[in-house]
């Protein structure tokens, strides 16, 4: 009887911890998401701000990340169905720009493969650590797929996640300005470039400019994730083994 009672108490405590971690993460995130929608400021990124609140909270209460993650990793599991949901915008965009699909693929495959290789070589040269190189090479694509690939190639998930937000903010804040300055003014080229380098953050920002920006950007965001998923497990380990 005693043992039975103990296990009941444990389960209650486990469920309470689970609910506290998950709900507080969700509440903080929703608060910042609301703030961003109200202010329309790109740099008030809810993911980044939530991390900046949750980390000091955990440190102040002496809670190890492992303990927090043990209860909140249900969110990471939810990324899998979230990836599947991206099939919907892919279907919509492939319909609208079917005529240029092959040429879009040609540009994306060659640019992404080249930059994957350049990223890995440079990152290994600068940081001399393979896990960081993997994380930084995968930073241009949408988070759920990048995290799945990071895990597969033994990168550091946290660095991938943060680098992805930085890459997204770069394209969302400066993307159009840089491309205009360099004379890359076609709406399709701008959409493609920002969707490829700055995934959903860049896409959501430039979709407000024109329909073509949005269509090419969302197509680039999903296609580059698929291309990276196919090519990075070949290119990255190959270069890492050559540089070892």
């Amino acid at each position, binding site marked *: 009887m005693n043992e039975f009672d103990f296990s009941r108490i444990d389960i209650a405590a486990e469920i309470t911890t689970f609910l506290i971690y998950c709900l507080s993460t969700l509440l903080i995130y929703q608060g910042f998401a609301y703030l961003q929608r109200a202010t329309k400021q790109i740099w008030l990124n809810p*993911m980044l701000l939530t991390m900046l609140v949750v980390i000091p909270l955990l440190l102040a209460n002496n809670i190890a990340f492992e303990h927090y993650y043990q209860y909140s*990793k249900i969110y990471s599991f939810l990324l899998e169905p979230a990836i599947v949901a991206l*099939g*919907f915008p892919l279907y919509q965009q492939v319909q609208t720009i079917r005529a240029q699909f092959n040429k879009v693929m040609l540009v994306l495959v060659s640019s992404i493969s080249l930059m994957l290789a350049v990223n890995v070589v440079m990152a290994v040269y*600068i940081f001399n650590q393979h896990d960081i190189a993997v994380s930084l090479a995968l930073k*241009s694509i949408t988070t759920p797929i990048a995290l799945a690939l990071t895990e597969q190639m033994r990168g550091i998930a946290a660095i991938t996640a943060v680098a992805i937000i*930085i890459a997204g903010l770069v394209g969302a804040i400066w993307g159009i300005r840089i491309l205009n300055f360099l004379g890359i003014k076609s709406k399709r080229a701008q959409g493609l470039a920002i969707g490829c380098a700055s995934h959903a953050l860049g896409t959501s920002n430039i979709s407000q400019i024109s329909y073509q920006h949005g269509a090419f950007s969302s197509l680039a965001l999903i296609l580059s994730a698929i291309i990276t*998923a196919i090519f990075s497990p070949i290119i990255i380990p190959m270069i890492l083994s050559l540089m070892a």
Partner: protein
Amino acid sequence: MHFFVVLIPPSLYGMLILSAGLHFNIFNPEKMEASITWVIRNMGVCFVPAGVGIMNYFDLIQASGVQVLAFTIVTTIVLMILVGWSFQKLFREFKDE
């Protein structure tokens, strides 16, 4: 050598199957549009726990945080310019209307 064994994350197959199913009219897009829009709009919270893991890498941030930041910014801009420039140069016939 496993160069020819391509390991795509399993959920990506799910995404391609969903997309193909919609394309070939097996699934009804009108029925799922609302729920999919909701999922995509709210999926940001799912990345928070993985990102909080950065708290285990404070030494790295102290030692080379600036380099990581600079590396990310520069390579992102280079990729963006490369894609935009090659698409515009190679396919000049795509003039915006």
